[in-house]
């Protein structure tokens, strides 16, 4: 994957995460996205750790296996094609609460997309990200895949939205500007 090009969330999920001492400590589980920023920016990295005996400053009575922690994006040193590298050694990470966060995999991927009247349009087949240096931004919502085309109806809608938000190119990605809000039940877009 060329990280300078837009890439899909699913290509990043399960990617190895290595700490400052180049130890494999787990894999990418999810990304927290700050939807209030324009464009929405990835603010935290959810890592599925193989084990830990510390969560932030808290030292646990005994190590726990298979735990998912949300790390501040500042902990990310670089995104490599084979792994995500962290700045600090495990387990000295700045850990963030998940409360109120929008997680791209949990809350956006595969989610029902509706218009503002609640009409169902499609599901989110993938989430497209764009990289600028070490920062990641939400590019848009992919509908349809190479092996499962989205269909002409949603295709026409996507084309209209891309023209409206001045995004040239015939792609199957709903631009992030069209997202109104992420509800528990659905992701609402402006049509």
């Amino acid at each position, binding site marked *: 994957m060329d990280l300078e090009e837009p890439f899909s969330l699913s290509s990043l999920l399960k990617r190895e995460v290595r700490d400052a001492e180049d130890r494999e400590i787990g894999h990418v589980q999810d990304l927290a996205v700050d939807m209030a920023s324009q464009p929405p920016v990835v603010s935290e990295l959810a890592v599925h750790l193989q084990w830990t005996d510390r969560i932030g400053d808290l030292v646990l009575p005994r190590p726990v296996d298979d735990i998912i922690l949300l790390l501040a994006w500042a902990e990310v040193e670089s995104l490599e094609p084979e792994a995500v590298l962290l700045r600090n050694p495990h387990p000295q990470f700045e850990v963030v609460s998940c409360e109120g966060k929008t997680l791209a995999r949990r809350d956006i991927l595969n989610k*029902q997309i509706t218009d503002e009247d609640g*009409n169902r349009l499609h599901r989110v*087949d*993938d989430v497209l990200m764009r990289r600028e240096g070490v920062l990641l931004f939400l590019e848009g919502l992919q509908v349809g895949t190479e092996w499962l085309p989205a269909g002409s109806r949603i295709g026409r809608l996507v084309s209209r939205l891309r023209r409206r938000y001045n995004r040239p190119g015939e792609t199957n990605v709903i631009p992030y500007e069209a997202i109104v809000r992420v509800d528990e039940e659905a992701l609402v877009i402006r049509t």
Partner: protein
Amino acid sequence: MLGRGGRTRRRPGRREILIFLTVLGPGLITAMVDNDAGGIATYSMAGARFGYEMLWVLAFTAILLALVQEMTVRMGMVTGKGLAALIRERFSLRLTAFIMFTLLVTNFANTVSNFAGLAAGMQLFHVPPWMAVPPLAVLIWWLVVRGSYKGVEKIFLVASLVYVSYIISAFLARPEWGEVAKAVVTPSPRFDTAYLALTVTIVGTTIAPWMQFYQQAAIVDKGLDSSKIRYERADTVVGSVLMTLVAMFIVICCGAAFFNNPEIGATTITSAEQAAEALAPVAGNYASYLFALGLLVASLFAGSILPLSTAYTVCEAFGWESGVDRSYGEAPRFYFIYTFFIAGSALLVMIPGIPLVMLMIVSQTMNGILLPVIMLCMLILINDRDIMGAYVNPPWLNGVMWAVTALLTLLTLAMIVSTFASG
């Protein structure tokens, strides 16, 4: 009123009975549709070939069915989402696409077999298929497309009463009730190929993947939430018991009529219409006509529910607009799938010499592949506290359900192998 243990045993009040009647529907309809043309043929063969010997298998299958369907009840009522949506959101697009493709193929084959049952049922009343199938297909299509779900549900609930015809047919066949009662409660497993194959087919016919999708979707469609969970559980148990009773009466009828009279040709009964026809000289014309009427209504019932269930499920999985309350312009894919299933099935069964048996084999095989996958997905979903909260499976039920999943996987694998081994 005090029970034996000195604890108060409360009788259901009028309000509770009313709530139950309001909730009643998804469980009962799902179970009743399960007694479709393919099911009736399987139960007829079981009775004709083994007499009452397989009645215990049905009793056992009823318990399995109730346990599996209870999980869909909980998932639907707690999450307010259909099974397809939960699978899509918890797993991946690829797995969802595989499940939906398999479900489309298997449900289409099942729909075709029900239209074949419809045509055969009408032929028993001396109406040729070309005269019967097109108007009935239009009727089925119109009933669902032009009606509301509530109205359709009421029609289906009333239609369920026609299954009484099998009970009457069984009585007309004059079975030995003492032997029947003994066979229900006495497991009599045999290990010959024919017996095992039919056992597998009974379980596979009774617990079909479409049922989990349909019942959960119907619960969500009805707006039932977890406050009414015990009523919907009761609906499910009532449905499973009634479905099994109907199946048992078909076995009893064919067992009494054919197994005890081998000169009629017990082993030649391979379809429901053959059973209905062969009943006339043994149990009288009334028994034969009632059996045919049951087949006709069962085929009509399943012929409308299966396409509807498939259209809802596929649209939910891919996020397309759906629902009979939507116009064609609003939900084109929903109407396309529904219409294609009905029109395609009606056309196929009118083509002379169409290999329906081959279609059935494909359907059974796909069902066999799909069922373990669905069961695994359901078990993962129902044990996810993020999704189910306090309504996850208790440990004892998990133990039972994992064992059931393993058993169903083995049985369906055996069914696939035996199907292909027998050519």
